[in-house]
């Protein structure tokens, strides 16, 4: 379970204080599929960095699975990311000259998991992400965009995280491939009960989630489970 209470993030440039986030609070239960929406500059990337334990808030508290993450050191944050968070990026970020399997196993390397178990878990994740077994030995630059993003999803799944954070996962894909990738997320949420947070600026993408949190100028504008109405408005 995720709980965010009164978090703010201030960037200081000289004498000017820039509020990227202002007193944001919300809760996300296990097994939810949430989209965080907002135009660029709204603070959604900052929020994603804090939720992903890449950054800490200037003030406020962030509990992840009952643990206060907002005051941890860099190495402690790295351990949180390693054990509890799976990232899917817009630009995929796979190792270019490594095989699909090696890419998916990478998070387990830092966890110190033995080789055989690593490979087995990577295969399971790839199957869950819907990649055909024929591609497991391919280099990542031999795959199509949709296949690459599914490898990235498998990599996010492999450490069995409490939370999958997807940052514009369809931003570099065409609409049809994007639909397939979003379908993969929906399936993981509905069938495996994964908690997923999707960061996007597109309504069509956000629509796939059960709940949409809309932010603008560093604050929450709306938090709706019945989002179809919101889009119509």
């Amino acid at each position: 379970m995720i709980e965010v209470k009164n978090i703010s993030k201030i960037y200081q440039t000289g004498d000017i204080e820039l509020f990227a986030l202002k007193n944001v609070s919300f809760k996300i239960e296990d097994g939810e599929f949430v989209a965080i929406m907002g135009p660029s500059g709204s603070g959604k990337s900052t929020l994603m960095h804090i939720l992903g334990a890449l950054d800490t808030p200037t003030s406020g508290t962030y509990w992840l699975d009952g643990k206060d993450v907002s005051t941890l050191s860099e190495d402690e944050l790295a351990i949180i990311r390693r054990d509890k968070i799976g990232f899917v990026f817009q630009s995929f970020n796979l190792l270019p000259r490594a095989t699909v399997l090696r890419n998916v196993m990478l998070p387990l390397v830092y966890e110190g998991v033995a080789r055989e178990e690593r490979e087995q878990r990577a295969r399971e994740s790839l199957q869950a992400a819907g990649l055909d077994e024929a591609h497991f030995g391919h280099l990542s630059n031999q795959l199509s965009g949709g296949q690459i993003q599914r490898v990235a999803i498998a990599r996010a799944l492999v450490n069995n995280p409490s939370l999958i954070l997807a940052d514009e996962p369809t931003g570099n894909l065409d609409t049809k491939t994007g639909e397939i990738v979003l379908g993969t997320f929906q399936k993981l949420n509905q069938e495996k009960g994964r908690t997923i947070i999707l960061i996007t600026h597109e309504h069509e993408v956000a629509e796939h989630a059960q709940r949409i949190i809309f932010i603008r100028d560093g604050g929450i504008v709306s938090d709706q489970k019945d989002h179809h109405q919101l889009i119509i408005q």
Partner: protein
Amino acid sequence: MRFTDILEETYAALSTNKARSGLTILGIVIGISSVIVMLAIGQGAQSSIQSSIQSIGSNLIIVMPGAQRGPGTFVSAGRGSARTLTLDDANAIASQFSDVSAVAPEVSGRYQVTSKSLNTNTTVDGTVPSYTSVRNVTIDSGSFISDLNNSGAAKVAVIGPTARDDLFGTGVDPVGQIIRINKIEFKIIGLTKTKGGGGFGSQDDMIFIPLTTAQRYLSGNQYVTTISVAARDAKSTANVQQEITDLLLSRHHISDPTAADFNTLNQADIASAASSIAQIFTILLGSVAGISLVVGGIGIMNMMLTNVTERTKEIGLRKAIGAKGGDISLQFLIEAITLTFLGGLIGVILGWAVSFGITYFGLIQTKVALSSILLAFGVSAGIGIIFGYYPARRAAKLNPIVALRFE
């Protein structure tokens, strides 16, 4: 992170850019191999100087006449010119000290020597049988000068191989032939074995005759030009040198040691002076090669820094999926150390091969010491750590958010 995983990551990273890794390794290879070759040449020179000093004789003390000093100013004929040493001095040294194993007085001079068809100008040395043990001379064919030859002032000669080549031609057995020294006929009774180079005048370009014969027919007086003394062992040479000095001072009735009319020369002193020169030579060569090693190290740092910049995004990703700063810096440090280790290994092999080649083709004697291999390895590992540390720290300190956005 497991160690085998670090090695696997290192292999993957280095094999990604084989040309660049190879060239970086080459820098270290050149550095390490030149250190090894230079040290091998230096140490080889040192040991060949030692052995050539050893070939002069073993535990040798040489007594030579000094410049004679009188009251006031006078025209000096230079050191070694004085006629102060006699056969009696030599006999006194031989009979009085227990640490002296052999004494060989000599009368030497350069004379024109002729055979039937050829002639040469060489050193003619009048001496006694014990010369062979004092100066490590061995006989190739025939025999050396005997006591009988000496007591009878026989006109017989033992010839060195170089003098033989000059007078009779290479490979000819000269025993039984006649030569003329200073127009006096001598019969050759023996040929000495080659001793090789010898730093202080060739020991091969010599003719030996009985001491008494030399005094009677060549020098025409009762003095000797050198007394060579062999001490029993290396430890006693300094002591023997002092005893000889004291004895000769009292025999020559000189009370002030600085006014001595003779000089003594200890082989150990020559050896240590020569080896300290060779040592300086070795250090000099080694440090020149060391500079190229440092340049190689800077090459490693350059490559690693380029690597960190190129792989910024990858570092960001690794941090995002849970790599700690220590994992990242360890990976880059191990990459640098692997490069220097491989470079060191190839460099040692290459350096060894080159040193062997130099010796094999007879350019200079070389000697690869274990210590210089260990030194080279230690230095190359050290260079990996020193020049790899800064790039590794830089990689570890990258902010994952910034690194992921890096294009």
